[in-house]
């Protein structure tokens, strides 16, 4: 997270942090382990009141930022989500809200308003089963007169069983098309997946000849590749901010533990072999803060290197996020593997985030492509 927030940003972050402290302490997260949604609608609505859903949407559409940099502001919420292991469809709802704010038509105005108010939630159906390069989409969106027809499977999709609206990215001839699909549309079937996470819920979503009026299309038919990439950058930046929050929390807990826990008459924090591992962890953590902030700032300013920075952030945080939390477990010993301990809440968060919207390996392939294109120009 940024070291120098504005006063407004700091107040905003602090408000969300306090709200999450109250609403979703780790005991509450444990209690909700089998809750199908993982959160109450009222929780989400109160979060929307705090501004969780409006930061990527222009004021003319009912949104607004804290600092003029909505993406950065939103990463403050994401960071606190990571630090608390908080539930709620923060990433997907904001992605959909941003997409509707940018390219949504009249048909979607009321949907957007409901998303902003927290009255309804939405999710983005992007990734697909099976190995493929990140960003390769095969779900079929066919134009049939003044209708479109969707066929294919998306997974994993966050909160799909709770979402009222599904933003679906599919392929139409050579290009990408995005459509907003009511979750209740005939032909949509949602199957819960099992996950490593305790708080968030993911599903596989199948579209069997789902037929909608062409007004469901967001943006241009066959011309949504740029929007999809933009959404991917946002999703990655937000997950990275969450991951950094979870890393920070796990790290802080483990530093406290090292000072408090005595072994052979000395605190763990006095053992040089452990001290050096804490130094490594601190370095990964600060590097993680730095690149996560860099990716958020680039996505906010829509600079040319936003995609590359997002991939660098994801490649780095995917690997080092899990390594850091795993080393926190190691330093705790057996107690760090128990359900009653808080550590796994954060390990779960970074573990799942690591594989969402591209694994570190997927993003390294993207980075290589960036390097190749740049060197070809140079």
């Amino acid at each position, binding site marked *: 997270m940024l070291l120098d927030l504005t006063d407004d940003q700091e107040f905003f972050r602090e408000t969300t942090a306090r709200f999450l402290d109250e609403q979703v302490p780790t005991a509450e997260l444990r209690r909700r382990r089998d809750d199908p949604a993982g959160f109450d609608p009222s929780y989400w609505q109160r979060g929307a009141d705090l501004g969780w859903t409006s930061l990527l949407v222009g004021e003319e559409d009912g949104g607004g930022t804290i600092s003029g940099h909505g993406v950065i502001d939103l990463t403050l919420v994401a960071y606190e989500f990571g630090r608390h292991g908080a539930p709620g469809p923060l990433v997907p709802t904001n992605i959909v809200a941003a997409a509707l704010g940018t390219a949504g038509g009249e048909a979607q105005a009321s949907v957007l308003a409901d998303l902003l108010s927290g009255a309804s939630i939405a999710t983005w159906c992007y990734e697909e089963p099976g190995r493929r390069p990140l960003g390769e989409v095969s779900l079929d969106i066919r134009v049939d007169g003044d209708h479109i027809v969707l066929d294919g499977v998306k997974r994993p999709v966050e909160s799909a069983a709770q979402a009222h609206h599904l933003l679906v990215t599919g392929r139409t001839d050579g290009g990408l098309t995005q459509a907003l699909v009511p979750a209740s549309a005939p032909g949509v079937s949602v199957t819960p997946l099992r996950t490593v996470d305790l708080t968030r819920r993911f599903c596989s979503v199948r579209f069997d000849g789902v037929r909608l009026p062409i007004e469901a299309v967001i943006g241009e038919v066959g011309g949504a590749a740029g929007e999809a990439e933009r959404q991917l950058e946002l999703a990655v930046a937000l997950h990275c901010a969450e991951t950094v929050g979870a890393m920070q929390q796990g790290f802080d807990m483990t530093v406290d533990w090292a000072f*408090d826990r*005595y072994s052979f*008459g000395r605190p763990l924090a006095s053992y040089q*072999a452990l001290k050096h591992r804490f130094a490594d962890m601190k370095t990964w953590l600060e590097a993680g803060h730095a690149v996560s902030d860099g990716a958020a700032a680039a996505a906010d300013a829509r600079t040319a290197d936003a995609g590359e920075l997002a991939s660098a952030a994801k490649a780095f945080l995917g690997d080092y996020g899990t390594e850091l939390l795993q080393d926190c477990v190691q330093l705790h010993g057996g107690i760090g593997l128990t*359900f009653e*301990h808080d550590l796994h809440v954060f*390990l779960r968060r970074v573990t*799942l985030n690591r594989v969402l919207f591209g694994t570190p390996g997927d993003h390294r392939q993207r980075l290589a492509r960036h390097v190749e294109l740049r060197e070809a120009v140079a």
Partner: protein
Amino acid sequence: MTVDTAEDVAAFRQRARQWIGENLRPFSSSNTMGLRVRTSEEELAAVAADRQLQRKVFDAGFAGICVPREYGGQALTPAHQRAFNEELTGFEFASRCQIPTMSPCAAVLLEFGTEEQRRRHIPAMLRGDEIWMQFLSEPSGGSDVAGALTTAVRDGDEWVLNGSKVWTTGAWWSDWALCLARTNWDVPKHRGLTVFVLPIHQPGIEVHQIEMLNGARDFCQEFISDVRIPDADRVGEVDEGWTVGTRWMSHERLLFNSPYVTYPAGLERSLAEGSAMQIARDTGRLDDPIARDRIGEARALELVGRQLEQRLAAGIGSRRLSDQAAAIGRLYGGLARLRTATIKFEIAGDAGGAWSDDDGTAAEIGLAFLMRQTSCIGGGTTEMARNVISERVLGMPRERTLDRDVPFRDVPRSPSGRS
């Protein structure tokens, strides 16, 4: 019956093979301890089945192959036990009656117990009537087991125990425990310990099942309040518990190689969940050079690990390596298993994070990844192994300890009182 006149190994093996083939069912992981998450009812049923199975082996004369006859055993040699274990490969066995019941608990009683203690407990163990646990680790202790805070105070012919023990596998369905307790706070830590045996299920002992983050509930914690133990249930001398404790831990480290333990040879190796190659197949990455690179890495780690185990066993056996060199195998094994769990998770891709039951071997790989550090924590951490290797194998200066030459009550302890 002496070793000279004992049945030779080949004949014993033949007899064992025949009996096993005629009487035991094929091995199934569904019933074996620690291999799956089970409901309490399922676990209790499995315990009862294990007791019956152990009794069947006992009645056939194959229990306690290296245990003296006067305690219900067969008085044969480790080679006989190995032969039996080899013949047992692929068959069911009483997993819950082996470790820690036979080793280290029976082993410690054989070495330090009174004649009465041995005659009372060891035949009962071999019949499956008594399942034992180790009351060794404590919540405050971590790697420092000699820093036990659980205290036994003498009261006439009895001792009164108070404290807490943890990481006891299956204590909630076990019968007896071997317990390390502090009997003197006014001497340095290794000189004020004593070992006892006690029944687990009695007023004053509350057994709490610990849920692990993957849902397993095998481990327990016990809260011990004013439990009274007759002095007859003391093992070894008062305040000499560390003498017992050192051997206790040495037996513990033998695991399935203990001559008192019946365990199908090669089982551990065959128990690995889906191989990295299977996961690649199930996630469509069989032709991905990166996945194949990782598969090759996992395979190399496995093969190197086997060669290393052989080298260490041979070197320790021939005294070319010190006993402490076993820590090298522990460190390698911990790190290799950790890396292999990571490789599998990486190959699984997003199915490692979110999966359906249709994902074959990729399903639940994410949970194994969450539990990854188990291989570097359980049975002594890799940090302790590194201390042993550098100090005991390479002879580097020992870490400074602040608990050696002072009365245990004066050892610096956690400011929060948590430890």
